[in-house]
């Protein structure tokens, strides 16, 4: 049956978009996998949707079937990352790396995903060497146990650091990460959106001050606003921030937020404040 083969591309795009909007995470995944095999006109849009956002995590999706709602083992995680790495390295007619726009790394309590054996660095290296469309890198640590950037094994750390210098990268997000090197942000070649959720930059004993303009398209600081001022703004006074979002939970936070706003007030077009009123 040839139904669907001759549909206009716009209709196919709408259908593929609708799949991910109206179906749950698991059903959406299954449907997109099927769509990728329907016909040539469905194959590319379905693959683009499947590979555009990649989550690497010990935990399966929240809406997984009950029988698979358990945390994966270290070996299982490594196997999945290895399979994915092989998949994007097996270059067929379509280089799948080019489809990846977002990579979300969810660090487990044992920090297994950061180990060299996990193969995470291979995925990052593929992105760094071949991707032209990679836009978002986010890392989140265990909620109750932030991980230190310095605890990342060297090979993984170098791959992560170099990936952040990709010119196409537009969004950099950290949640529950301690000691992020300030260089990851200040050396980025293009305007960035930076998100720091319960995360802090590393202390720099004697960082070099810079007078060049650092452009952050948007900045979100949730918790540790004072540390952000001390560890980042002290050395990067010349900031251009258009969208600023901050969480305020006490007087000191409020003062730090105001101090920051005053430093970038001429370019600020959007201000978003989350205040705990108790």
């Amino acid at each position: 049956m040839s139904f669907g083969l001759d549909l206009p591309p716009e209709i196919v795009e709408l259908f593929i978009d609708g799949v991910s909007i109206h179906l749950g995470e698991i059903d959406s995944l299954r449907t997109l996998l099927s769509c990728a095999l329907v016909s040539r006109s469905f194959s590319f849009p379905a693959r683009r949707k499947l590979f555009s956002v990649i989550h690497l995590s010990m935990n399966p999706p929240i809406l997984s079937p009950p029988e698979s709602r358990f945390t994966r083992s270290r070996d299982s995680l490594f196997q999945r990352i290895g399979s994915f790495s092989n998949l994007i390295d097996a270059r067929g007619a379509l280089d799948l790396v080019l489809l990846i726009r977002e990579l979300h790394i969810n660090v487990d309590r044992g920090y297994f995903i950061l180990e060299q054996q996990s193969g995470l660095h291979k995925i990052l290296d593929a992105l760094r060497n071949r991707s032209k469309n990679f836009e978002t890198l986010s890392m989140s640590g265990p909620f109750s146990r932030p991980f230190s950037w310095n605890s990342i094994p060297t090979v993984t750390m170098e791959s992560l650091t170099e990936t952040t210098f990709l010119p196409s990268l537009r969004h950099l997000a950290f949640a529950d990460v301690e000691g992020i090197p300030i260089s990851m942000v200040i050396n980025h070649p293009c305007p960035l959106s930076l998100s720091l959720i319960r995360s802090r930059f590393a202390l720099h004993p004697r960082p070099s001050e810079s007078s060049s303009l650092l452009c952050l398209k948007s900045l979100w600081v949730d918790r540790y606003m004072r540390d952000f001022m001390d560890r980042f703004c002290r050395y990067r006074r010349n900031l251009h921030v258009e969208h600023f979002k901050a969480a305020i939970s006490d007087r000191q936070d409020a003062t730090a937020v105001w101090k920051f706003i005053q430093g970038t007030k001429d370019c600020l077009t959007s201000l978003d404040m989350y205040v705990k009123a108790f």
Partner: protein
Amino acid sequence: MGSSFRIPIDIGTLPDLRCLRLQLQCPKSNTLIASGHVLWLPNSANPPTKIEVLQIIVDSITTVPDSRTFFCNGEADDQTTWDALHSDALREKHPRLRKITLNFNLEIVPAECDDRDGTFSLLDLSHHLASDLRVLLAPPGATSRIDISVSLDVVFESQRLNRVVI
């Protein structure tokens, strides 16, 4: 006022600010609190701003699922703050303001409702609250032509699925 600390921010000094979004997480209260230091911010602008869009999000918890009690028995400071959010008053401070959005998320402690005579309706409460909230921003006689949008999400504390969204 509700907040125990001042927010020392004068948005009037931000020459290019177009969008202001305030999200307020309130403690449990039987009345509509405003946490004046936060919601007073739009009113304190000096000089007038270029703000075009104002969004206010309030997350509140109450044990009194009665619209009139919730609205009328608040502290004077809170009432003053809500008064200052009238669209006409805001237009004076923000001549370019064209849209106000209020998202009110109310969580009700269900134990207080169980004593009622069975006539309690989450839907009725939601409609009354939505109406009252809208009047807070655009009282009868308001002249400014600002697009005002009020949305309400009422939920029992322990029954998050029993949700009414208006």
